[in-house]
């Protein structure tokens, strides 16, 4: 065994012993959900700065929450008004569809049609509203929980499902884990299973856009837990130095599998404040408020497109579902915690707002849900016709050797022959 630990120094002043702080969430299973540490300001109280504001002038915005929808469901304050009723209804449908898609695919996984699935329940507003603030040609570098980016722009559900089923029509040839979509035409970068890596890649893409005198912007996505990875820091350093047109999104859904955001450093500062040390302007936004998300996204995207540089946004939300189909959250947090979440449900809140302004009704909502459920079901049936993970047509073994390089080198041809395919 090793050298003994050197004996603790007992300083002459009899300094008391040190101790290690290990953060724990306020409550664990069995306890009563408690979000008293989440300070929620009144909607409409946070100012909307000019696009060319200096980072130093909005540091306070990293310590509050930008909200538009108030308790009565009315849109209030500087950030209200970025969308008309059509835009809002489009957002609502996108969120409903995302949720319906998740439900259907969760079921498909339970039925053994695929190996794995991840829902975005409770976080739909963020991806949907953000996507609808982008222009064609812009590029997202998403994580696995931004299916809303694709669904909001009506990317074919069948396509997404075929990928999930790893079937013969999977555009990725069965090579990737379910939900690790790639959709270049939809401005959706290939998802990586390795957390964080995409964050700095987005900065590189934006740098390229600037180098080429393009007008397109990039959006980077990361979870609260993953901000601890190195790529988060590299992204901020490069974004700070070269000021490329990139929006640095952090989806703070309070959890990273079983660990609370405190284990990522959320106990002592906000994630939005991370930007300060790099001189990057940042916002902290109610991620369950569709209107706030859209307005903040638009602000940051406009900044980027006008060559005003990067913006970091912390979207405050809550991961309502399990981390993935391999996870059981009742092991580490109270079951009722999501009900206690103070920012509510994004679908309900937008629905109520639309009803409040006379642009929607419970009936229309029920009808929309039914239509969308049917659309999702039809898509699933269609996708299943092309096979599911363990049954029906599937990508060939031969295809496994393709695409490692642009042209297949000799050793891979030899190996393919060895497998006899």
């Amino acid at each position, binding site marked *: 065994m*090793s050298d003994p630990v*050197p004996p603790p120094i007992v300083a002459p002043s009899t300094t008391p012993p040190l*101790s290690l702080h290990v953060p724990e969430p306020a409550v664990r299973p069995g306890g009563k959900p408690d979000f008293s540490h989440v300070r929620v300001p009144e909607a409409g109280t946070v100012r909307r700065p000019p696009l060319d504001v200096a980072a130093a002038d909005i540091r306070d915005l990293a310590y509050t929450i930008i909200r538009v929808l108030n308790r009565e469901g009315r849109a209030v304050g500087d950030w209200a008004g970025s969308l008309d009723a059509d835009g809002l209804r489009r957002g609502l449908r996108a969120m409903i569809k995302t949720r319906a898609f998740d439900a259907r695919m969760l079921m498909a996984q339970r039925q053994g049609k695929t190996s794995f699935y991840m829902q975005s329940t409770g976080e739909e507003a963020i991806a949907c509203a953000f996507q609808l603030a982008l222009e064609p040609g812009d590029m997202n570098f998403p994580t696995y929980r931004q299916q809303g980016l694709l669904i909001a722009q009506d990317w074919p559900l069948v396509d997404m499902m075929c990928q999930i089923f790893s*079937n013969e029509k999977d555009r990725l040839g069965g090579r990737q884990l379910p939900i690790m979509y790639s959709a270049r035409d939809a401005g959706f970068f290939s998802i990586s299973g390795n957390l964080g890596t995409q964050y700095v890649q987005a900065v590189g893409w934006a740098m390229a856009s600037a180098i080429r005198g393009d007008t397109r912007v990039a959006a980077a996505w990361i979870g609260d837990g993953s901000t601890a990875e190195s790529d988060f820091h590299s992204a901020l350093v490069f974004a700070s130095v070269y000021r490329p047109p990139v929006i640095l999104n952090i989806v703070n859904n309070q959890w990273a599998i079983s660990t609370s955001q405190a284990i*990522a450093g959320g106990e002592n500062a906000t994630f939005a404040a991370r930007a300060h040390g790099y001189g990057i302007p940042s916002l902290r936004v109610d991620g369950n408020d569709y209107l706030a998300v859209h307005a903040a996204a638009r602000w940051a995207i406009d900044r980027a497109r006008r060559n005003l540089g990067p913006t970091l946004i912390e979207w405050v939300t809550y991961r309502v579902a399990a981390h993935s189909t391999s996870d059981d959250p009742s092991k580490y947090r109270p079951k009722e915690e999501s009900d206690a979440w103070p920012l509510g449900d994004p679908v309900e809140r937008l629905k109520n707002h639309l009803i409040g302004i006379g642009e929607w009704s419970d009936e229309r909502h029920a009808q929309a849900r039914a239509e969308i459920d049917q659309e999702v079901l039809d898509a699933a049936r269609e996708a299943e016709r092309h096979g599911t993970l363990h049954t029906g047509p599937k*990508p060939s*073994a031969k295809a496994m050797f393709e695409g*490692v390089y642009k042209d297949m080198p000799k050793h891979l041809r030899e190996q393919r022959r060895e497998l006899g395919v």
Partner: protein
Amino acid sequence: MARITMIEAIRDAIDLMMARDDKVVVFGEDVGYFGGVFRCTDGLQRKYGRTRCFDTPISETGIVGVAIGMGAYGLRPVCEIQFADYVYPAYDQIVSEAARLRYRSAGEFTSPLTIRMPCGGGIFGGQTHSQSPEACFTHVSGLKTVIPSNPYDAKGLLISAIEDDDPVIFLEPKRLYNGPFSGHHDQPVVPWSRHPLSEVPDEYYAIELGKAAIRREGAAVTVIAYGTMVHVAEAAAAETGIDAEIIDLRTLIPLDTDTIEQSVRKTGRCVILHEATRTSGFGAELSAQVQERCFHHLEAPILRVTGWDTPYPHAQEWDYFPGPARVGRALKAVMEA
């Protein structure tokens, strides 16, 4: 003596070492309260407290980096990388720091780390939950690399790894966590309780690092394997009826060349197995050494049966995995050569 799974054996080893040595600290992503996504550290935080077993931020380089600092202080960190596929962000801290610290400081500071990580495929984990990166470590002087194939070894080897004063990469074939696996994915899952090597003493015991085990004695051909492939080799030998001698390396570095040499000198034939991609895999080193040490005894070319030189695909998992059919073909080929 209980029959336990590999997960239980691993937990048992850590528990035992935490009890024996209060310098042992355990941490990693989801390792504390929840007990790890594979539950290998379940219950340890409750038993030893939050400063002995705790959750970490999602930063593999941070995990290994702080472990090195703790090791330099005099603790004995046992950290978990959630999947071996996620070890690369920590590669610099492992290669440039943990592996070299003793050497560069002439022994003033050491890195008595154990870095555990689940590896290998067979669970439809796709390209980022299936990798076998052992060759990335075997090339690095200063590291030891260990990979058990059963609960008994897992406990004894992990105890040795934790006691070892050098950094040890401890790879755990995740497909073996809950039962042995012959590679016949279409057959019912077998639990560990039916396997003799799931009989694990409750008490402390150590299996010396650097010693291979012969899983099956044989005269016709030497099969060198480790981890999951040991079980595949056993199946292939049984199914082909070829009298293979199956070596379970258990430790890749330091390598038990004596056992290998002795066996190949006897059989004159050698097949090397691993799940990792072929080119520059650890099989290449094994092949080179067998050839260097036993050249004049070889009656046939040494063959490698391995994962292909592609990322580990999702849908084609069983075309990728070097199962008993492919191993059997190699055994026959080497006998006919």
